[in-house]
């Protein structure tokens, strides 16, 4: 019998691995195993259009059921993988079933980090990661009047915008001194924060949640580390995620803040790859191995692994990109900045159309664009070409990024 590829995790990365294997003409069995019930779906709209009723559950599905059947992709939804037997090259499922693999792809994703504080288990305190989380939130948003968001990252701010649109009062707590500290530069954070303040969101920086108070099991208050008490009937925690690397750890694979992979996305076992949110990989543009949480990263890494399994091995070197929709504002990021990178502003901040170029040692490291899709798309090309850019060139808006990218 031809042994196949087993993919653990049916999020964006796992789905793409299965689809790309078939596109590459993989002849053997492909099995896609996911813990969540139903068809694989996309997560980004869960904090945006889905909560506003603009995106239906069906529109979230990455492909219809027939897609998997027609391509001979065995989809095991609502199934948990309990263990990997690396010697036997099998995985054991919670249902007791086994699947043999010639190659195993771990696309296990990440789980929301929840604060270990009193009241975190109260009804109305939740994270937002899965379809089930989003359906629960959608229901609660209908009845809630006061939302407290813990964490001013992408998810937290996206939910804050939606909640204001739905007429809720919104407070955002952020432990750092500003929003999105790890993901964007100060000018971009300031612009987006200001836009939310204008929509009536109240920010509390350098402030954390210390406890959630409740009545009859339902959250009613948030106690901050400054001693303030905020009323709340809904709390969304957007405090980052932890890579889901338990299975890999238990199987004895190398794990260090994610499943450690090499430039070809292979784990310490050459019969096992890891992709997406759960994988820590070496990047040509970064001194430290990276773990990225994005659709692009999941999709491109899935393609890289599928191509390798089809005999077209190449190191993973794609330019990362990210996006966040916050009301009328579109944030697009190309590349990965580090805190120490220089920030050079181009464009019209007051007019809400600008980019911040991040430079590291004379090289372009990342570009953060607000309502500037052309800059963003040019940045992806410039980063792929690893261009050098002086500070003067970066700041000179007569010097078009797009023309440099085309050259």
């Amino acid at each position, binding site marked *: 019998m031809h042994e196949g590829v087993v993919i653990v995790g049916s999020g964006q990365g796992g789905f793409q691995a299965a689809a790309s294997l078939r596109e590459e003409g993989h002849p053997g069995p492909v099995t896609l195993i996911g813990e969540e019930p139903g068809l694989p779906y996309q997560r980004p*709209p869960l904090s*945006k259009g889905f909560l506003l009723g603009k995106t239906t559950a069906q529109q979230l599905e990455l492909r*219809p059921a*027939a897609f998997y059947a*027609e391509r001979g992709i065995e989809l095991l939804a609502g199934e948990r993988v309990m263990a990997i037997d690396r010697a036997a090259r099998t995985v054991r499922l919670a249902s007791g079933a086994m699947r043999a693999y010639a190659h195993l792809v771990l696309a296990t994703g990440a789980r929301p980090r929840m604060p270990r504080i009193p009241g975190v288990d109260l009804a109305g305190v939740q994270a937002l990661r899965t379809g089930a989380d989003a359906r629960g939130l959608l229901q609660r948003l209908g009845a809630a009047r006061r939302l407290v968001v813990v964490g001013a990252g992408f998810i937290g701010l996206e939910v804050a915008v939606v909640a204001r649109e739905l007429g809720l009062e919104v407070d955002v707590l952020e432990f750092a001194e500003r929003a999105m500290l790890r993901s964007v530069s100060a000018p971009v954070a300031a612009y987006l924060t200001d836009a939310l303040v204008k929509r009536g969101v109240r920010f509390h920086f350098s402030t954390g949640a210390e406890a959630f108070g409740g009545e009859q099991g339902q959250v009613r208050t948030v106690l901050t580390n400054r001693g303030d008490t905020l009323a709340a009937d809904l709390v969304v925690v957007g405090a980052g995620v932890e890579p889901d690397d338990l299975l890999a750890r238990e199987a004895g694979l190398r794990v260090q803040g994610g499943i450690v992979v090499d430039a070809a996305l292979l784990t310490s076992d050459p019969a096992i790859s890891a992709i997406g949110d759960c994988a820590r990989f070496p990047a040509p543009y970064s001194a430290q191995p990276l773990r990225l949480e994005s659709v*692009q990263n999941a999709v491109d890494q899935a393609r890289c692994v599928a191509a390798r399994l089809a005999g077209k091995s190449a190191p993973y070197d794609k330019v990362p990109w990210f996006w966040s929709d916050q009301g009328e504002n579109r944030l697009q990021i190309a590349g990965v900045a580090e805190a120490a990178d220089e920030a050079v502003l181009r464009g019209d901040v007051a007019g809400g159309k600008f980019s911040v170029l991040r430079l590291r040692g004379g090289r372009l490291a990342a570009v953060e664009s607000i*309502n*500037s*899709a052309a800059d963003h*798309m040019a940045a992806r090309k410039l980063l792929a070409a690893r261009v050098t850019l002086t500070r003067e060139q970066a700041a000179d808006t007569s010097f078009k990024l797009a023309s440099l990218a085309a050259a």
Partner: protein
Amino acid sequence: MPKITYVQPDGERRSIPVDAGATVMLTAVANGVPGIVAECGGAAMCATCHVYLDEDSQEVVPPVSEVENEMLESAASGRRNNSRLGCQIAMPPGVDEIVVHIPSHQV
């Protein structure tokens, strides 16, 4: 019933009946039409649902928005006058058919 017709680079045609409001991208993805990648799921963030609109169809759909215009500049297959993002084209009411040509590559 109105329909969206997809023409592959090799000339193969497939028509899918739709209701008014259905987008070119979502209809393609839901029906397994090859060549529409739609990485970002319809947020006009990725330009991987690029299509060339048939001449007759160009007059019946709303014009290109600023965001779409900027994204199209970087589509993987070259931009033409009739380039659109499939996620931004919804079937207008009262129109019988939209015909789109799928480019050779999206990424």
